[in-house]
């Protein structure tokens, strides 16, 4: 394929990786991957879930050693046997799976392994001071207060993600890999991050940027490198390519790509059930409150897909958790007319409610257990005693095929999956249940374009079968494309309900930022 167009008259790359290969047992994570980045350049690394992006990132930063291939940095061959070496050379990364220690404070995490010392001891004052300076670059976009002394465990996923960025910056990198660092950030946080990235680029930093949100690629990158099944299949300047071409490169072209695009642009909007207002009421909330979530009233009808938006951490996750019975709540809840008060998720499940958590590593996965067990965890009851394992396996295989999870075998631990594929497992365990009410907390985090389209189609199918869906997303495009109605939350309150004419990007942003008059409160 004539896919490579080496840009003319360019300086030496800061980093170049050629012919990189890496296998895990029978799985070829990378076969023939190449990537080069110049100082002062932002390169987007694109590819479907499991195409090898994170693996390549880990090889560049010395976490993983390649089986074959060469790395050069600053004109000299680079041999890394551990991450510390890479960091000393000025190469750091924000990894997809967050690496913070929950029991330590923000400052302790940021300086872990290179604490400032004075007179033989850790210099806590300097450590805090410099952390505060670094945190200041995100001032105003944190959804909860983040101080150097804040315990990481108390932070929501978006803030932990920003702390990861700060932690990488503390090493003063010359090359920074951002592996899906935006996946759990809201619009405002992404804006700030991009402002910073542009600043770093000015300062001569090289950035490798991985994201499944195509619009971000076009906003921040200078060049895109595309991986498919572990092979670098193409390289494009951002100014000379459109989204469709990139998606085609990622997927290998053909019909799949077409569906993916359709799904991305206007997912499921056509699936609005006619006459939805006459459909029976499924969920009715009266003065429902929980923790930061201020009392709210809400009515959801059968087959409706209602979005919950706003900046990250405004109480959206808490609202969903409370509806699922995982945290206490006040007020009235009626499910299909009958009053209910779930005291734990089990009761909610039995009543036909399902929930996809927003934090896959802490709430959604059993990393060391096989994929099969992860998918069937809520469902074992259905397989009798003794458990009919063949049937459980067949059903799991069907879900895996439905979501196109790339795996070697159902018996492999879920920790071996790529981030996006692991997320599909978190969603997949509920798919065979046909819930009455499905609560989704940012379910497409790190999921690739194709799989997103597949998920949207599944949601439409569930809707058609009468499932009511309450859907929180940090991706505005997704809310606008999927939902007939979007509740915007700010500070625990529903400050706007957008539908019909008001359901567009402008109103959504305005409502999220707290501007008045965006819609009826």
């Amino acid at each position: 394929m004539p896919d490579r167009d080496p840009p003319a008259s360019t300086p030496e790359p800061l980093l170049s990786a050629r012919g990189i290969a890496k296998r895990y047992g029978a799985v070829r994570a990378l076969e023939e991957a190449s990537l080069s980045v110049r100082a002062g350049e932002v390169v987007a690394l694109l590819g479907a879930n499991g195409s090898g992006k994170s693996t390549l990132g880990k090889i560049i930063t010395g976490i993983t050693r390649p089986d074959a291939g060469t790395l050069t940095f600053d004109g000299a061959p680079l041999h890394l046997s551990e991450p510390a070496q890479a960091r000393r050379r000025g190469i750091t990364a924000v990894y997809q799976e967050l690496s913070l220690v929950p029991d330590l404070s923000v400052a302790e995490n940021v300086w872990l392994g290179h604490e400032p010392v004075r007179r033989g001891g850790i210099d806590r004052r300097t450590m805090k001071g410099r952390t505060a300076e670094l945190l200041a670059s995100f001032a105003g976009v944190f959804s909860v207060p983040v101080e150097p002394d804040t315990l990481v465990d108390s932070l929501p996923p978006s803030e932990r993600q920003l702390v990861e960025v700060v932690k990488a910056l503390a090493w003063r990198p010359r090359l920074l890999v951002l592996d899906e660092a935006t996946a759990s950030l809201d619009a405002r946080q992404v804006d700030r991050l991009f402002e910073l990235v542009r600043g770093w680029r000015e300062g001569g930093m090289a950035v490798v940027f991985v994201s499944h949100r195509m619009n971000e690629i076009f906003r921040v990158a200078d060049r895109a490198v595309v991986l498919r099944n572990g092979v670098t299949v193409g390289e494009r300047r951002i100014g000379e390519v459109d989204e469709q071409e990139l998606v085609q490169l990622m997927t290998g072209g053909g019909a799949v790509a077409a569906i993916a695009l359709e799904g991305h642009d206007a997912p499921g909007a056509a699936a609005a059930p006619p006459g939805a207002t006459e459909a029976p009421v499924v969920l009715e909330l009266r003065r429902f409150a929980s923790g930061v979530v201020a009392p709210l009233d809400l009515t959801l009808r059968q087959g409706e897909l209602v979005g919950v938006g706003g900046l990250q951490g405004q109480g959206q996750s808490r609202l969903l958790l409370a509806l699922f019975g995982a945290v206490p709540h006040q007020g009235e809840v009626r499910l299909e007319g009958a009053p209910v008060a779930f005291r734990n998720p089990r009761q909610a499940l039995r009543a036909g409610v399902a929930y996809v958590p927003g934090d896959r590593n802490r709430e959604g996965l059993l990393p060391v257990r096989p994929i099969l067990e992860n998918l069937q965890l809520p469902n074992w009851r259905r397989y009798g005693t003794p458990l009919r394992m063949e049937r459980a396996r067949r059903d799991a295989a069907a879900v895996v095929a439905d979501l196109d999870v790339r795996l070697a075998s159902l018996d492999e631990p879920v920790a071996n999956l790529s981030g996006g594929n692991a997320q599909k497992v978190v969603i997949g365990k509920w798919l065979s249940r046909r819930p009455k009410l499905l609560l989704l907390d940012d379910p497409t985090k790190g999921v690739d374009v194709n799989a997103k389209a597949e998920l949207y189609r599944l949601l439409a199918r569930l809707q058609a079968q009468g499932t009511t869906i309450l859907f929180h997303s940090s991706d505005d495009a997704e809310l606008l494309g999927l939902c007939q109605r979007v509740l915007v939350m700010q500070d625990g309150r529903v400050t706007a309900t957008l539908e019909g004419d008001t359901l567009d990007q402008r109103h959504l942003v305005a409502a999220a930022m707290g501007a008045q008059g965006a819609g009826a409160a």
Partner: protein
Amino acid sequence: MSRVPPAAVALLLSVALFFLAGLVQPNFVNAAQAINIVRLAAFLGIIAAGQTLVIISGGEGIDLSVGAVVTLGAILTFMISGGSSERLWLALLVVLAVGAAIGLVNGLGIVFVRIPPLVMTLGMAGVVQGTILAVTRGNIPGGVPRALANLVTGRFLGVPGAIYLWALLGLLMWFVLQRTRYGRELFAVGVNRRTAALSGVNVSGVVVLTYTLSGLLAALGGLLLLGFTQRVFLTLGETYLFPSIAAVVVGGTVLAGGRGSYFGTMAGALVLTMTESLLRSMRIGEAYQMIVFGAILVVLLSVYGRQRERE
């Protein structure tokens, strides 16, 4: 390059140790000796069954009351049956009920009062030991039912009953862990309780049931042990406490929870018993035995740890 499961490593090690013993003590390697060692391992293995479940359940799970409950199981059998085989059934029922009740209290304390397992079960061990002492004042009337002795020591095809019972328990434990909802949920609870709860698992129920089973299995172990020792004394079970934990760990069950198997524990029990017999036959003192045990633990754990890193 596939990974060898820890259970297989431990099993191979015990076989290797057996033949190694032959080099040091030529008269050590024969069928009778092998059977004898497996029989000794059977009691440890049975007593460590509950420990396996508790350790898999995670949350710093450990049951330090098994020693005391083994003693109690043996003493109750001794006293209730009074040596009569007809009353063995009654003894069995009481022993199982009392063991389960003790485990239930452990579980409730750990789950609902949030007492750390180490503290709760250690306290329970003290309470049980103390109660035995206070009630019996060291004077324990009773006897060993002949039926029990026959069941445990009687031979079928040259193999003592204890070994058949152990094999049966092995199958039962495999079934419980691999083919019941409880087993699957136990592993999930051991890995991540939050994920388990959000997936509809009754986490409290699973943990309480696990400690209850541990108490029940330890008491059953005490009953069977009586058939072997033919006498009771106040420290009967105590000697099994540390080995019951060591057997689980040597068998590859992870102390952090969520991973392991009872076959591993069985192999672990063989390794420990094997080593002990060998050292004893070489007239190596108890202090050195302990050093060797410690060394085996450290070496095996680092081997398993390294394998996991490669995963």
